[in-house]
């Protein structure tokens, strides 16, 4: 128990009004170790690492770094002490160049030219190619992460914290990341790795500390356990297995024919000749790295963007020129990625939010007047059927946690019994329990004879749910392949063109 550990936490606690985010958390990270921090959303992982990085101050307990007390008052102090962090949502400045971004993350950056040379040096050493003069806004997700990582590496950290780094990467990019981390660990750096992707933790991490409800519930060697047991430790009970049974492909429901659309905004992606067929009872998975046309495809299907006539047919009827309300009435429903602001109005109550999409199909609006009791009843139905944890239908949407709001938003569409449902990133940022509930509901919907299109960046999810898989790359949709027997590697190659991959293999 003598302190070889790089970092040690003893009895850390932190409260926010109404929430005990961390309670008596103790663990240690050894040099050269990739240490996983596992837990559901809200288990207190983020709060914990924010305390280590000086963004939040703990209420009780104490931390040690290299045997010295670690009480950073702000991130600069933490960095000076040897802690570096790669954030879940990239903390980059879009309009600035790579070199400027890196300079902002350093205490005493050298002049621009010297810094650029050092960036080139480090990126060569670790096989992370990066042009210091590029503006971040033009980089892919994988390249952006490289910027963050190099920013950390230039400080020679003793402890590197990674907060869900692979959620936006292709499998190949993720492999590259782990190779880099292993190289770093072999050099003696301690790495604290946060994720809820269990497979990845099982293959790459040396030790795992599991958090639940803000407390450490277990510590184990993840390689010695199955993903199932790890999930059970996280959730504190058995995970319900996903039931895929009882579905068979029926008649053709939705046809999209050579859908071509200019990019709706300067930052958007144009759709180029998207063609697909969806049958009753079928789930079609569409994978791809963010920014390759996912949002645009959803908008084109939902009716937010109208297409040329003859491009979108539902059960033979041409919907291409119709708006979202008319398409909903015909049975084509959609749930966009952005829960707060796109799928739901943050300040509206849940009951009012049902009116946004269910007004016509559930008869909540009659002769231009809102039937409030009916809306409240429908919201209550969703809350019950989808186990949405909230005081009631009068609660504002923004007061719900991400997972609960997602269950509500998906539930709102599923319970309208659509003919075809299109969802984008249905479980993004949602914890394991809620994610499996959402996925099961999509499978159940397909079993009842609806067609479902799942657009997602989570490949495990697509493999779990879909019968056929297509890749969306720069606005082009690949031909579908049956999911059965498809490996992650093959999918990675389909997503292929993912920017920068060729360079990355240099």
């Amino acid at each position, binding site marked *: 128990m003598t302190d070889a550990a790089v970092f040690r936490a003893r009895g850390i606690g932190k409260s926010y009004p109404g929430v005990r985010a961390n309670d008596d958390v103790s663990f240690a990270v050894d040099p050269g170790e990739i240490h996983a921090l596992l837990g559901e959303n809200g288990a207190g992982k983020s709060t914990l690492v924010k305390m280590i990085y000086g*963004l939040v101050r703990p209420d009780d307990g104490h931390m040690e770094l290299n045997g010295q007390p670690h009480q950073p008052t702000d*991130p600069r102090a933490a960095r000076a002490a040897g802690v570096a962090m790669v954030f879940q949502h990239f*903390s980059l*400045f879009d*309009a600035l160049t790579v070199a400027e971004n890196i300079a902002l993350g350093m205490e005493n950056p050298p002049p621009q030219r010297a810094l650029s040379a050092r960036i080139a040096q480090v990126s060569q050493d670790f096989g992370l190619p990066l042009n210091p003069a590029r503006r971040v806004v033009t980089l892919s997700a994988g390249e952006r992460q490289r910027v963050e990582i190099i920013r950390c590496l230039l400080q020679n950290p003793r402890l590197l914290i990674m907060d869900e780094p692979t959620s936006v990467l292709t499998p190949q990019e993720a492999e590259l990341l782990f190779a880099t981390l292993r190289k770093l660990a072999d050099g003696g750096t301690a790495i604290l790795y946060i994720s809820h992707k269990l497979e990845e933790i099982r293959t790459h991490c040396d030790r795992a500390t599991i958090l639940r409800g803000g407390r450490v519930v277990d510590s184990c060697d993840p390689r010695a356990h199955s993903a199932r047991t790890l999930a059970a430790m996280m959730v504190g009970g058995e995970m319900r297995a996903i039931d895929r049974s009882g579905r068979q492909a029926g008649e053709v429901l939705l046809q999209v024919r050579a859908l071509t659309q200019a990019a709706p905004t*300067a930052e958007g992606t144009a759709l180029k000749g998207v063609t697909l067929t969806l049958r009753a009872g079928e789930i079609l998975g569409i994978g791809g790295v963010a920014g390759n046309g996912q949002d645009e495809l959803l908008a084109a299907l939902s009716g937010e963007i109208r297409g040329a006539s003859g491009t979108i047919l539902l059960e033979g009827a041409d919907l291409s020129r119709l708006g979202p309300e008319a398409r909903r009435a015909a049975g084509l429903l959609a749930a966009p990625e952005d829960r707060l602001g796109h799928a739901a109005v943050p300040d509206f109550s849940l009951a009012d939010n049902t009116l946004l999409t269910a007004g016509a199909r559930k008869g909540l609006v009659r002769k231009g007047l809102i039937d409030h009791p009916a809306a409240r009843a429908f919201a209550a139905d969703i809350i019950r059927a989808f186990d949405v944890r909230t005081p009631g239908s009068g609660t504002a949407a923004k007061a719900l946690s991400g997972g609960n709001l997602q269950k509500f938003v998906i539930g709102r569409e599923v319970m309208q019994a659509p003919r075809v449902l299109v969802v984008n990133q249905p479980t993004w940022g949602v914890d394991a329990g809620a994610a499996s509930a959402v996925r099961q509901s999509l499978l159940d919907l397909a079993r009842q004879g609806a067609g479902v299109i799942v657009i997602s960046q989570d490949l495990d999810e697509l493999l779990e749910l879909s019968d056929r898989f297509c890749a969306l790359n720069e606005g082009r949709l690949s031909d579908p392949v049956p999911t059965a027997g498809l490996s992650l590697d093959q999918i990675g190659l389909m997503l292929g063109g993912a920017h920068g991959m060729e360079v990355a293999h240099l």
Partner: protein
Amino acid sequence: MIDLFALFLMLLSASTPILFAALGELVTERAGVLNLGVEGMMIVGALAGFAAAHHTGNPFLGFAAAALAGALIALPFAALTQFLLANQVASGLALTLFGLGLAALFGKPMEGVKAPAMSPGPLGLNWIVWLGLLMVPTIWWFLNRSRAGLILRGVGENHDAAHALGYDVRRVRIAAIAFGGAMAGVGGAFISIATVLQWTEGMTAGAGWIALAIVVFSNWTAPGVLAGAWLFGGVTVLQLRLQAAGVRVPVQLLSMAPYLATIIVLVAISARQKYSRRAGGTAPGSLGQDFHALR
């Protein structure tokens, strides 16, 4: 030829108030704060500068007082938007109305008083004109080459990321707001001390609004601000010349020209999507948004 040169010198003078105000607002907006109170800060600077110049007899002290007054009047705006998270657009409009009213109230004793004479600088131009021209490369250098400027741009581009890296978003923004106020104050004082040579109510006559438009026109760069200020200064000088030459166009139409030019240029800019961020546009990413850190 000589006439063209004289016209250019006139243009330099005419564009100075807008140049100062727009450079100040440029720095403020680059820090992510939209301060629509430029007009109000200018008029307060115009009065305070004029009063100080009159009482001390030293116009340069007048400009110093104008800068101080501009920065001070901007501080309530800073407190409202940075601490109380008040809406920046509404607070900025309130600052304009407040400044106009305040200056009208305290300006009564100054009416009819003449400004002290000022010795001209090189080429017979006012020293402040030269100072304004000097501020363009200085601010460009500050924003693009200095560490402090990089931090300020970072705060304006993504305040959450800047906070996560340990920068004090609030402090940077308050400093930027105060600087913007000081620059607007000097711009306003140039009108009262160096151009009109007396105090009249509402004498800034919309210059603050033109300055705001120029910041957009400039694509948030210092050289762009200079180009914009010269464009509108040029239109102003031209319309004065045309009036003096007795061109048979109604005076009202001519006086309208600078404002009309503002609208036309802004419409033309937003019609083209040139300023998309991917294409190299630099509208600060966090412009006008409230920042609140949870600790």
